[in-house]
């Protein structure tokens, strides 16, 4: 430890952002050491919402687990369901019917869009731009309506489960989805005018919160933050799952590593998601949507383990699932992108930044505390 003179120390103050703070992305806290307006050191503190999900799941059977799993992260329950289901299927060797794979793809992409719409609100809001958030959260409701029609619930769908999906597409759902997508596509221009064309946002976002390209992979950065450094890794392309291998889409990549680049990636991802969903609707195979599991109360998986990863909204999430041959998982471990982004990456890039940009940067990383504390 470096000894500081009294005068030096007196210039520095400790500041806490969160756990009660409008700019924090959930129940977490960033402890800052600041000198003037500048961050000297940052520490992420978690522990405000530990719900022992991973442990609790060990007491549930394979199916009961999934009603808890989706709650790992409010803005994106579906990738959790999807990844867990795929891990269970991998251990059991259970086939998923093609139709289910397509439906899963659509759900995962709708989840991505709705989550990005929430992100718009947070990102703009933390720059003091409140109008955009009102629009995007309002528009997000159209997607939640689609989820309601499809799954019966708006947020926690509990829809993708081992063997496929829980119910088939309702009548007319595909058309309604197409209409929502057409509307959203048009709205993206409105969003642009409020955010990317906005001088305030330009000034705040450009050159701020930079993740150096040469460090990005080393630090374990994934998702939009990684694509914003110019590296186009994406699980959907690199190790295609669901129907991604059969669909055309691009991975948006921007250079710079700053908040601006990350925001552009997300904006473009929405367009790609719309493109993916349209194709999936067009190519939707017939047949069964569900390869029936045995009676859930007596469903035993063979002993074994699986590590399965998915490109979630915030980056790569992976489930490590271990079965000891009984009705319940021996271990379910989640490794989400937020864990890296919200702790180690945040702590590395905050020093030197302005205090006012802390929330702004945090939002651009997509840090979701429940994913850090499982």
């Amino acid at each position, binding site marked *: 430890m470096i000894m500081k003179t009294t005068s030096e120390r007196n210039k520095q103050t400790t500041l806490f952002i969160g756990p009660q703070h409008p700019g924090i992305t959930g129940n977490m806290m960033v402890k800052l050491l600041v000198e003037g307006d500048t961050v000297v050191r940052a520490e992420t503190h978690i522990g405000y919402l530990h719900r022992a999900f991973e442990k609790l799941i060990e007491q549930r059977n394979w199916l009961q687990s999934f009603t808890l799993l989706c709650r790992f992260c409010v803005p994106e329950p579906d990738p959790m369901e999807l990844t867990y289901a795929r891990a269970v299927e991998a251990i059991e060797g259970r086939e998923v019917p093609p139709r289910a794979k397509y439906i899963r793809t659509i759900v995962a992409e709708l989840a991505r869009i709705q989550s990005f719409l929430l992100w718009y609100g947070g990102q703009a809001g933390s720059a003091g731009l409140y*109008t955009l958030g009102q629009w995007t959260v309002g528009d997000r409701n159209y997607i939640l309506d689609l989820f309601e029609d499809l799954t019966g619930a708006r947020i926690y769908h509990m829809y993708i489960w081992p063997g496929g999906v829980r119910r088939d597409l309702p009548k007319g759902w595909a058309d309604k989805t197409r209409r929502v997508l057409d509307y959203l596509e048009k709205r993206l221009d409105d969003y642009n005018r409020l955010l990317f064309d906005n001088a305030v946002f330009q000034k705040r976002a450009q050159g701020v919160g930079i993740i150096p390209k040469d460090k990005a992979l080393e630090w374990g950065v994934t998702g939009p933050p990684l694509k914003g450094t110019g590296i186009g890794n994406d699980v959907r392309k690199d190790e295609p799952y669901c129907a991604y291998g059969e669909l055309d889409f691009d991975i948006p990549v921007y250079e710079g590593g700053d908040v601006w680049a990350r925001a552009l990636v997300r904006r473009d991802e929405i367009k790609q998601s719309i493109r993916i969903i349209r194709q999936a609707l067009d190519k939707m195979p017939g047949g069964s949507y569900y390869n029936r599991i045995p009676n859930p109360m007596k469903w035993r998986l063979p002993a074994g383990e699986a590590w399965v990863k998915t490109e979630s909204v915030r980056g790569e999430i992976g489930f490590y699932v271990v079965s000891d041959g009984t009705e319940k998982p021996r271990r379910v471990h989640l490794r989400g992108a937020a864990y890296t982004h919200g702790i180690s990456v945040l702590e590395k890039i905050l020093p030197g930044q302005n205090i006012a940009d802390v929330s702004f940067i945090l939002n651009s990383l997509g840090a979701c505390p429940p994913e850090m504390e499982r």
Partner: protein
Amino acid sequence: MSIIDLKGLLVPLGALKQIAKEPHTIKYPDQTKEISERYRGFHYNDLDLCIGCGNCSTICMNEAIDMVEVEDIEGKPGDSGLRPRIDYGRCCYCALCVDVCPSGSLSMTADFIKVSEDAFDFLMIPGKDNPGGKDKITFDASTDTSLNLFERVPMRELPPEERVQSFAEVFLGYTEEEARIEASRCITCGLCTENCPVHMHIPEYINAISRGDDEEAIRIIYDNNDLPEMCGKVCTRRCEDVCALQVRGEAVAIRWLKRYATERAENADMIRRIVNPEIREPNGIKVGIIGAGPAGLTAGYYLALKGYDITIYEAKSEPGGMIMYGIPKYRLPYDSIQKQVDYMKSIGVKIHFNTKVGKDISFDEIYNKHDAVFMGVGLQKGYTLGIEGEDAEGVWAAVDFLGLVNEGKRPDMGKRVVVVGGGDVSMDSSRVSRRLGAEVVQLYRRRIVDMPADDEEIEGALEEGVQIIEKAIPTRVIKDEKGRVKGMEYVRAELVPPEGGGRPRPVPIKGSETVIECDSIIAAIGQKADFGLLPEKVQNSLTFERGKIKVDDERRTGYPKLWAGGDAVKYGRVDAISAIADGFYAAESIDAYFMQVKA
């Protein structure tokens, strides 16, 4: 300020044009939200359809569902009488409860708003507290979307053409894989246990089978059934009648699973090794048992385990009573019974065969020689048809005919046999006659659907070529000059609902007399008991009802230290498992009695 900056300040002002737009939000309560057709709101439960199995409560990991008593709903076979109550402070609306509901009674509705200051208002009994939910059902589970597996693993069986060639067992039993899959369908609700006369631990042994622990299953099974392999093959399986899955699909094959498990123990020694029962020190108390049928054997086995000195007196030369002499071998092979009885003998049960009480040894002698007596003499005599010509040669009582065949004899039934009756015994008579090479016509007073016989038996008989004439009442046996059966005359009947309501009665249609030519006739219209073995003073102190001895819940008769059970008493139904239950509970009662005497 640069040009770009100016643009960056002006463009966002475009947002102002949105002011004129309709808002996304709705004005509640003037406007209500349109709820989608699959919405998962508050539950609704069809209280009449619900069977109170509690599967909803079992799957709910939030412990939001309790099974509670509800006014005006009584338990009955196949219905626990309980109904789910949901705590909306805990419910997460995952709807797993709906997807695992076997009866399909539970669903979710479009309702989701409830305002109350009283926390208890959020404990709701769906269906009772929201009867209007019926018309707002949005999320339910059809048999396609349900998580229950409604289809049973089929049992392999011999083809009908092959069956009638011999007395080989018709059903071939589950393979290990089939048994595991079938066992995994059980939802462990226990409605079956309630309806089993001896309350076997059904969900527990099925669990063991599904886990792959057959030996544990066998141990659980032998806890209150000493003839389980027999039950695994021929039980009347009232458990399956009330299986939760049977409401919308096929009941779990409880009987076949028991058969599967018990057949893993291939001989008496293996049963002994696996069950490895705790046998109490001999207590010197002697109990005599009359009749080695299921009732007598069961009482003997469980008393022997409790340290009693057991002697069974049996008129016939083989054990088992009607399961040996009545049930045909293609349903229950000889070796299967022997194996189970050998195991009982290894526990210390002694059986004196060819010893008819009342003839070879007196009741008094047995009564005096033992500290207590259990009587399970069954129903050994068949009812007669009560029609003209019945004394002809070639007219049989079903039990006599089946007894003879089961002893290995092959009576000559001629070319065509007429069987009268609609119960299981009649089906056995018909199917055995087919195996003896005869053509079989069966007459029944009502319709096939009204037959008390097991559907499986009726189906089996039809497959094997038995012809059933419905609504036919025998009126006369026609003899030839030598006094042999030549034919059977019957009238057609029509079913008339009685005035007071109830089951329609067959009433003969005048002038519809028809004659079928035949060489033999088998009357399978019921059996009765023979209490000739009991001295007058004993008979006088017993109560009889419809030709059967009345016993209390503990199977005590009115005579001191005399217990009775099985077909000969008026308690349960007339089947093997009821006889086993009688033997089992009598054993408990006898033990309790002597415990008290000692104390």
